[in-house]
Protein backbone atom coordinates (compact mmCIF):
# COMPACT_ATOMS: atom_id res chain seq x y z
CA UNK A 1 0.00 0.00 0.00
CA UNK A 2 1.06 3.54 -0.53
CA UNK A 3 2.89 5.54 2.07
CA UNK A 4 3.58 9.22 2.29
CA UNK A 5 7.08 10.39 1.55
CA UNK A 6 7.49 12.04 4.95
CA UNK A 7 6.14 10.33 8.02
CA UNK A 8 8.06 12.23 10.70
CA UNK A 9 5.54 14.74 12.03
CA UNK A 10 8.21 17.09 13.42
CA UNK A 11 9.81 17.51 10.03
CA UNK A 12 6.35 17.71 8.48
CA UNK A 13 5.47 20.83 10.36
CA UNK A 14 8.94 22.23 9.72
CA UNK A 15 8.25 21.80 6.02
CA UNK A 16 4.83 23.37 6.32
CA UNK A 17 2.67 20.30 5.82
CA UNK A 18 0.65 20.93 8.97
CA UNK A 19 0.16 24.62 8.28
CA UNK A 20 -3.55 24.51 8.98
CA UNK A 21 -3.19 22.71 12.29
CA UNK A 22 -0.20 24.60 13.60
CA UNK A 23 -1.83 27.96 12.92
CA UNK A 24 0.90 29.37 10.70
CA UNK A 25 -0.56 31.96 8.33
CA UNK A 26 -3.49 34.27 8.84
CA UNK A 27 -7.25 33.88 8.44
CA UNK A 28 -7.33 34.83 4.76
CA UNK A 29 -4.47 32.48 3.91
CA UNK A 30 -5.91 29.55 5.81
CA UNK A 31 -9.28 29.97 4.07
CA UNK A 32 -7.55 30.20 0.72
CA UNK A 33 -5.45 27.17 1.65
CA UNK A 34 -8.54 25.15 2.44
CA UNK A 35 -10.28 26.08 -0.80
CA UNK A 36 -7.22 25.69 -3.01
CA UNK A 37 -6.11 22.48 -1.36
CA UNK A 38 -9.57 21.02 -1.76
CA UNK A 39 -9.87 21.98 -5.42
CA UNK A 40 -6.34 20.93 -6.31
CA UNK A 41 -6.82 17.59 -4.63
CA UNK A 42 -10.04 16.94 -6.53
CA UNK A 43 -8.43 17.11 -9.96
CA UNK A 44 -4.87 15.82 -10.01
CA UNK A 45 -4.10 15.43 -13.67
CA UNK A 46 -1.41 12.84 -14.11
CA UNK A 47 1.59 12.65 -16.37
CA UNK A 48 2.14 8.91 -16.93
CA UNK A 49 5.92 8.50 -16.90
CA UNK A 50 5.56 4.82 -17.74
CA UNK A 51 8.91 3.30 -18.65
CA UNK A 52 8.50 -0.40 -17.89
CA UNK A 53 6.07 -3.11 -16.81
CA UNK A 54 4.47 -0.99 -14.04
CA UNK A 55 3.04 1.17 -16.81
CA UNK A 56 0.66 -1.70 -17.62
CA UNK A 57 -0.94 -1.34 -14.19
CA UNK A 58 -1.00 2.40 -14.65
CA UNK A 59 -2.87 1.92 -17.91
CA UNK A 60 -5.22 -0.61 -16.29
CA UNK A 61 -5.94 1.86 -13.50
CA UNK A 62 -7.08 4.49 -15.96
CA UNK A 63 -9.45 2.22 -17.90
CA UNK A 64 -13.05 1.51 -17.08
CA UNK A 65 -12.64 -1.36 -14.62
CA UNK A 66 -10.69 0.71 -12.13
CA UNK A 67 -11.67 4.12 -13.49
CA UNK A 68 -9.19 6.77 -12.47
CA UNK A 69 -11.55 9.51 -13.65
CA UNK A 70 -13.76 9.23 -10.60
CA UNK A 71 -10.76 10.38 -8.51
CA UNK A 72 -10.31 13.35 -10.83
CA UNK A 73 -7.16 11.86 -12.35
CA UNK A 74 -6.88 12.28 -16.10
CA UNK A 75 -3.73 11.03 -17.79
CA UNK A 76 -2.43 13.68 -20.16
CA UNK A 77 0.49 13.23 -22.51
CA UNK A 78 1.79 16.76 -22.15
CA UNK A 79 3.77 17.61 -19.01
CA UNK A 80 2.55 21.22 -19.14
CA UNK A 81 -1.05 20.11 -18.55
CA UNK A 82 -0.40 18.01 -15.50
CA UNK A 83 -0.04 18.24 -11.73
CA UNK A 84 1.41 14.90 -10.72
CA UNK A 85 4.07 12.81 -12.42
CA UNK A 86 3.52 9.08 -11.86
CA UNK A 87 6.89 7.42 -12.39
CA UNK A 88 5.89 3.85 -13.22
CA UNK A 89 8.85 1.71 -14.13
CA UNK A 90 12.59 1.39 -14.25
CA UNK A 91 14.54 4.58 -14.80
CA UNK A 92 17.90 4.07 -16.48
CA UNK A 93 20.83 6.44 -16.41
CA UNK A 94 20.11 7.28 -20.02
CA UNK A 95 16.46 8.04 -19.29
CA UNK A 96 17.20 10.17 -16.23
CA UNK A 97 17.91 13.48 -18.05
CA UNK A 98 14.67 13.03 -20.02
CA UNK A 99 12.65 12.48 -16.83
CA UNK A 100 14.23 15.56 -15.25
CA UNK A 101 13.46 17.60 -18.32
CA UNK A 102 9.83 16.49 -18.38
CA UNK A 103 9.52 17.19 -14.66
CA UNK A 104 10.90 20.67 -15.15
CA UNK A 105 8.32 21.33 -17.87
CA UNK A 106 5.45 20.66 -15.47
CA UNK A 107 3.88 23.80 -14.02
CA UNK A 108 3.94 24.41 -10.26
CA UNK A 109 2.43 23.16 -8.03
CA UNK A 110 3.54 19.65 -8.94
CA UNK A 111 3.92 16.36 -7.18
CA UNK A 112 5.64 13.04 -7.89
CA UNK A 113 4.44 9.51 -7.21
CA UNK A 114 7.03 6.73 -7.32
CA UNK A 115 5.08 3.67 -8.39
CA UNK A 116 6.68 0.24 -8.06
CA UNK A 117 9.89 -1.01 -6.52
CA UNK A 118 11.97 0.06 -9.50
CA UNK A 119 10.96 3.67 -9.06
CA UNK A 120 11.43 3.46 -5.28
CA UNK A 121 14.84 1.81 -5.04
CA UNK A 122 15.74 0.07 -8.29
CA UNK A 123 13.79 -3.00 -7.17
CA UNK A 124 15.04 -6.20 -8.76
CA UNK A 125 17.69 -4.15 -10.57
CA UNK A 126 19.28 -2.90 -7.35
CA UNK A 127 22.21 -5.35 -7.48
CA UNK A 128 24.61 -6.00 -10.33
CA UNK A 129 23.29 -3.26 -12.56
CA UNK A 130 25.32 -0.84 -14.60
CA UNK A 131 22.47 1.16 -16.08
CA UNK A 132 19.58 1.52 -13.64
CA UNK A 133 19.05 4.47 -11.30
CA UNK A 134 18.38 3.14 -7.79
CA UNK A 135 15.25 5.09 -7.03
CA UNK A 136 13.69 8.10 -8.66
CA UNK A 137 14.04 10.00 -5.37
CA UNK A 138 17.72 10.44 -6.11
CA UNK A 139 16.84 13.23 -8.48
CA UNK A 140 13.13 14.07 -8.01
CA UNK A 141 11.26 15.10 -4.84
CA UNK A 142 8.93 12.13 -4.39
CA UNK A 143 5.71 12.70 -2.41
CA UNK A 144 4.15 9.24 -2.38
CA UNK A 145 5.78 5.82 -2.67
CA UNK A 146 3.72 2.83 -3.81
CA UNK A 147 5.40 -0.52 -3.18
CA UNK A 148 4.83 -3.55 -5.34
CA UNK A 149 6.27 -5.28 -8.36
CA UNK A 150 3.99 -4.14 -9.90
CA UNK A 151 1.50 -2.54 -7.47
CA UNK A 152 -2.16 -3.28 -8.09
CA UNK A 153 -4.25 -0.47 -9.59
CA UNK A 154 -6.03 -0.26 -6.23
CA UNK A 155 -2.68 0.59 -4.61
CA UNK A 156 -2.19 3.36 -7.12
CA UNK A 157 -5.62 4.71 -6.36
CA UNK A 158 -4.85 4.56 -2.65
CA UNK A 159 -1.69 6.50 -3.45
CA UNK A 160 -3.78 9.16 -5.17
CA UNK A 161 -6.02 9.40 -2.10
CA UNK A 162 -2.94 9.79 0.12
CA UNK A 163 -1.52 12.41 -2.20
CA UNK A 164 -4.83 14.23 -2.06
CA UNK A 165 -4.56 14.42 1.73
CA UNK A 166 -1.04 15.73 1.36
CA UNK A 167 -2.12 18.34 -1.18
CA UNK A 168 -4.95 19.50 1.08
CA UNK A 169 -2.54 20.01 3.96
CA UNK A 170 -0.30 22.27 1.91
CA UNK A 171 -0.28 26.02 2.12
CA UNK A 172 -0.28 28.72 -0.53
CA UNK A 173 2.06 30.72 1.73
CA UNK A 174 5.07 31.64 -0.35
CA UNK A 175 8.13 29.67 0.54
CA UNK A 176 6.51 26.64 2.10
CA UNK A 177 6.30 24.51 -0.97
CA UNK A 178 9.38 26.10 -2.42
CA UNK A 179 11.41 24.96 0.58
CA UNK A 180 10.39 21.40 -0.02
CA UNK A 181 11.20 21.60 -3.72
CA UNK A 182 14.74 22.75 -3.07
CA UNK A 183 15.51 19.96 -0.61
CA UNK A 184 16.79 17.83 -3.48
CA UNK A 185 19.08 19.68 -5.84
CA UNK A 186 18.05 18.96 -9.40
CA UNK A 187 20.89 17.91 -11.64
CA UNK A 188 20.23 18.49 -15.29
CA UNK A 189 23.60 17.17 -16.44
CA UNK A 190 24.00 13.39 -16.24
CA UNK A 191 26.25 12.29 -13.41
CA UNK A 192 29.75 11.30 -14.56
CA UNK A 193 30.14 7.56 -14.74
CA UNK A 194 33.93 7.49 -14.78
CA UNK A 195 34.97 4.44 -12.77
CA UNK A 196 37.45 4.88 -9.94
CA UNK A 197 39.36 1.59 -9.80
CA UNK A 198 40.63 2.10 -6.24
CA UNK A 199 37.11 2.06 -4.81
CA UNK A 200 35.86 -1.34 -3.54
CA UNK A 201 33.17 -2.77 -5.77
CA UNK A 202 30.69 -3.26 -2.94
CA UNK A 203 30.72 0.37 -1.82
CA UNK A 204 27.58 2.30 -2.66
CA UNK A 205 28.03 5.57 -4.56
CA UNK A 206 27.92 8.65 -2.37
CA UNK A 207 24.58 9.74 -3.78
CA UNK A 208 22.83 6.42 -3.21
CA UNK A 209 20.46 6.32 -0.24
CA UNK A 210 21.40 3.75 2.37
CA UNK A 211 18.24 1.73 2.11
CA UNK A 212 17.58 -1.85 1.25
CA UNK A 213 15.91 -2.76 -2.03
CA UNK A 214 12.22 -3.18 -1.48
Amino acid sequence: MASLGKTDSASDSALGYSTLESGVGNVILTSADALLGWSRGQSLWAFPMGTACCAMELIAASFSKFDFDRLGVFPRQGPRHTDVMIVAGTITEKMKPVVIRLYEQMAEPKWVIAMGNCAISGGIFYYDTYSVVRGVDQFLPVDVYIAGCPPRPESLQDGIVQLRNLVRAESVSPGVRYRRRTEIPLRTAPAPTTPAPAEPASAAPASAPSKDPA
Partner: protein
Amino acid sequence: MTTTFAATMASIAEKFKSAVLADSDGVADACIRVEREELLGLATELAAKGFDQLEMVTAVDYRDRIGLIYRLVSATLSASLVVRCDLPAEQPRVVSLAGIWPAADSQEREVLDLFGVAFDGHPCPKRIFLPDDFCGHPLRKDFESPTLIRRPDLI
Protein backbone atom coordinates in the same frame (compact mmCIF):
# COMPACT_ATOMS: atom_id res chain seq x y z
CA MET B 1 19.08 -20.37 -58.01
CA THR B 2 19.76 -24.00 -58.65
CA THR B 3 22.80 -24.59 -56.43
CA THR B 4 22.18 -26.59 -53.29
CA PHE B 5 23.30 -25.69 -49.82
CA ALA B 6 25.89 -28.49 -49.77
CA ALA B 7 27.38 -27.32 -53.05
CA THR B 8 27.56 -23.75 -51.75
CA MET B 9 29.37 -24.89 -48.60
CA ALA B 10 31.81 -26.94 -50.66
CA SER B 11 32.66 -24.00 -52.90
CA ILE B 12 33.13 -21.76 -49.83
CA ALA B 13 35.52 -24.24 -48.22
CA GLU B 14 37.51 -24.37 -51.47
CA LYS B 15 37.72 -20.62 -51.93
CA PHE B 16 38.56 -19.45 -48.39
CA LYS B 17 41.48 -21.26 -46.87
CA SER B 18 40.74 -20.20 -43.29
CA ALA B 19 37.06 -21.14 -43.48
CA VAL B 20 36.47 -24.35 -41.53
CA LEU B 21 33.16 -26.13 -41.21
CA ALA B 22 32.50 -26.61 -37.53
CA ASP B 23 29.80 -28.01 -35.31
CA SER B 24 26.77 -25.72 -35.31
CA ASP B 25 25.36 -27.21 -32.06
CA GLY B 26 22.05 -27.71 -33.78
CA VAL B 27 21.20 -24.01 -33.95
CA ALA B 28 21.77 -23.81 -37.70
CA ASP B 29 22.34 -26.04 -40.71
CA ALA B 30 26.07 -25.36 -40.66
CA CYS B 31 28.73 -23.31 -38.92
CA ILE B 32 31.78 -21.69 -40.50
CA ARG B 33 34.78 -20.52 -38.53
CA VAL B 34 36.79 -17.88 -40.31
CA GLU B 35 39.83 -15.71 -39.63
CA ARG B 36 39.00 -12.03 -39.49
CA GLU B 37 41.18 -11.20 -42.53
CA GLU B 38 38.85 -13.26 -44.69
CA LEU B 39 35.59 -12.25 -43.04
CA LEU B 40 34.69 -9.50 -45.50
CA GLY B 41 35.42 -11.69 -48.54
CA LEU B 42 33.43 -14.56 -47.07
CA ALA B 43 30.48 -12.31 -46.27
CA THR B 44 30.46 -10.84 -49.76
CA GLU B 45 30.56 -14.34 -51.25
CA LEU B 46 27.77 -15.59 -48.97
CA ALA B 47 25.55 -12.62 -49.78
CA ALA B 48 26.10 -13.25 -53.50
CA LYS B 49 25.30 -16.95 -53.04
CA GLY B 50 21.87 -16.22 -51.59
CA PHE B 51 22.33 -15.57 -47.88
CA ASP B 52 20.32 -12.39 -48.07
CA GLN B 53 19.23 -12.04 -44.48
CA LEU B 54 21.43 -11.36 -41.46
CA GLU B 55 19.39 -12.41 -38.44
CA MET B 56 21.73 -11.63 -35.61
CA VAL B 57 25.16 -10.34 -34.70
CA THR B 58 26.34 -11.11 -31.20
CA ALA B 59 29.49 -11.85 -29.28
CA VAL B 60 30.82 -13.99 -26.45
CA ASP B 61 33.59 -13.05 -24.05
CA TYR B 62 35.85 -16.10 -23.59
CA ARG B 63 38.32 -13.97 -21.56
CA ASP B 64 41.25 -14.87 -23.83
CA ARG B 65 39.33 -13.89 -26.95
CA ILE B 66 36.07 -12.36 -28.15
CA GLY B 67 33.96 -14.64 -30.32
CA LEU B 68 31.82 -12.84 -32.87
CA ILE B 69 28.74 -14.72 -34.09
CA TYR B 70 26.77 -13.92 -37.22
CA ARG B 71 23.60 -15.82 -37.97
CA LEU B 72 22.49 -15.87 -41.60
CA VAL B 73 19.40 -17.16 -43.32
CA SER B 74 18.83 -17.86 -46.97
CA ALA B 75 15.32 -18.12 -48.36
CA THR B 76 16.52 -19.35 -51.75
CA LEU B 77 18.64 -22.16 -50.27
CA SER B 78 16.22 -22.83 -47.38
CA ALA B 79 19.16 -22.90 -45.03
CA SER B 80 20.57 -21.15 -42.01
CA LEU B 81 24.23 -20.61 -41.27
CA VAL B 82 26.36 -19.46 -38.37
CA VAL B 83 29.62 -17.65 -39.03
CA ARG B 84 32.05 -17.42 -36.13
CA CYS B 85 35.07 -15.21 -36.02
CA ASP B 86 37.46 -14.96 -33.07
CA LEU B 87 39.07 -11.66 -32.15
CA PRO B 88 41.82 -10.93 -29.64
CA ALA B 89 40.53 -9.80 -26.25
CA GLU B 90 42.85 -6.78 -26.30
CA GLN B 91 41.37 -4.08 -28.53
CA PRO B 92 39.21 -6.30 -30.72
CA ARG B 93 38.76 -4.83 -34.18
CA VAL B 94 37.00 -6.19 -37.24
CA VAL B 95 35.55 -4.98 -40.49
CA SER B 96 31.92 -3.85 -40.49
CA LEU B 97 29.43 -5.82 -42.57
CA ALA B 98 26.82 -3.04 -42.59
CA GLY B 99 27.58 -2.37 -46.25
CA ILE B 100 26.57 -5.93 -47.17
CA TRP B 101 23.63 -6.48 -44.83
CA PRO B 102 22.09 -3.20 -43.54
CA ALA B 103 20.73 -5.17 -40.56
CA ALA B 104 24.29 -5.30 -39.24
CA ASP B 105 24.23 -1.56 -38.59
CA SER B 106 22.35 -1.50 -35.29
CA GLN B 107 23.55 -4.92 -34.13
CA GLU B 108 27.21 -4.08 -34.59
CA ARG B 109 26.62 -0.95 -32.56
CA GLU B 110 25.17 -3.16 -29.85
CA VAL B 111 28.31 -5.33 -29.86
CA LEU B 112 30.43 -2.19 -29.85
CA ASP B 113 28.47 -0.84 -26.89
CA LEU B 114 28.47 -3.94 -24.72
CA PHE B 115 31.69 -5.73 -25.77
CA GLY B 116 33.88 -2.92 -27.06
CA VAL B 117 34.54 -4.41 -30.48
CA ALA B 118 35.56 -1.73 -32.98
CA PHE B 119 33.94 -2.08 -36.42
CA ASP B 120 35.99 -0.55 -39.22
CA GLY B 121 33.93 1.20 -41.86
CA HIS B 122 30.74 1.32 -39.80
CA PRO B 123 28.49 4.23 -40.87
CA CYS B 124 27.88 5.38 -37.28
CA PRO B 125 30.33 3.81 -34.81
CA LYS B 126 28.72 5.04 -31.60
CA ARG B 127 27.13 3.49 -28.52
CA ILE B 128 23.51 2.48 -29.02
CA PHE B 129 22.04 1.67 -25.56
CA LEU B 130 24.24 3.30 -22.97
CA PRO B 131 24.92 7.01 -22.56
CA ASP B 132 27.71 8.31 -24.77
CA ASP B 133 29.88 9.16 -21.76
CA PHE B 134 29.59 5.67 -20.23
CA CYS B 135 32.92 4.06 -19.31
CA GLY B 136 33.59 0.42 -20.07
CA HIS B 137 31.71 -2.36 -21.82
CA PRO B 138 29.39 -4.10 -19.37
CA LEU B 139 29.11 -7.55 -20.95
CA ARG B 140 32.89 -8.02 -20.80
CA LYS B 141 33.68 -10.35 -17.92
CA ASP B 142 36.32 -8.00 -16.51
CA PHE B 143 33.85 -5.07 -16.36
CA GLU B 144 34.03 -3.12 -13.13
CA SER B 145 32.29 0.08 -12.14
CA PRO B 146 32.02 1.98 -8.84
CA THR B 147 28.24 2.12 -9.28
CA LEU B 148 27.94 -1.68 -9.30
CA ILE B 149 26.61 -3.16 -6.07
CA ARG B 150 27.29 -6.90 -5.95
CA ARG B 151 24.56 -9.19 -4.68
CA PRO B 152 25.82 -10.26 -1.23
CA ASP B 153 25.09 -13.98 -1.70
CA LEU B 154 27.08 -14.06 -4.95
CA ILE B 155 30.30 -12.43 -3.72
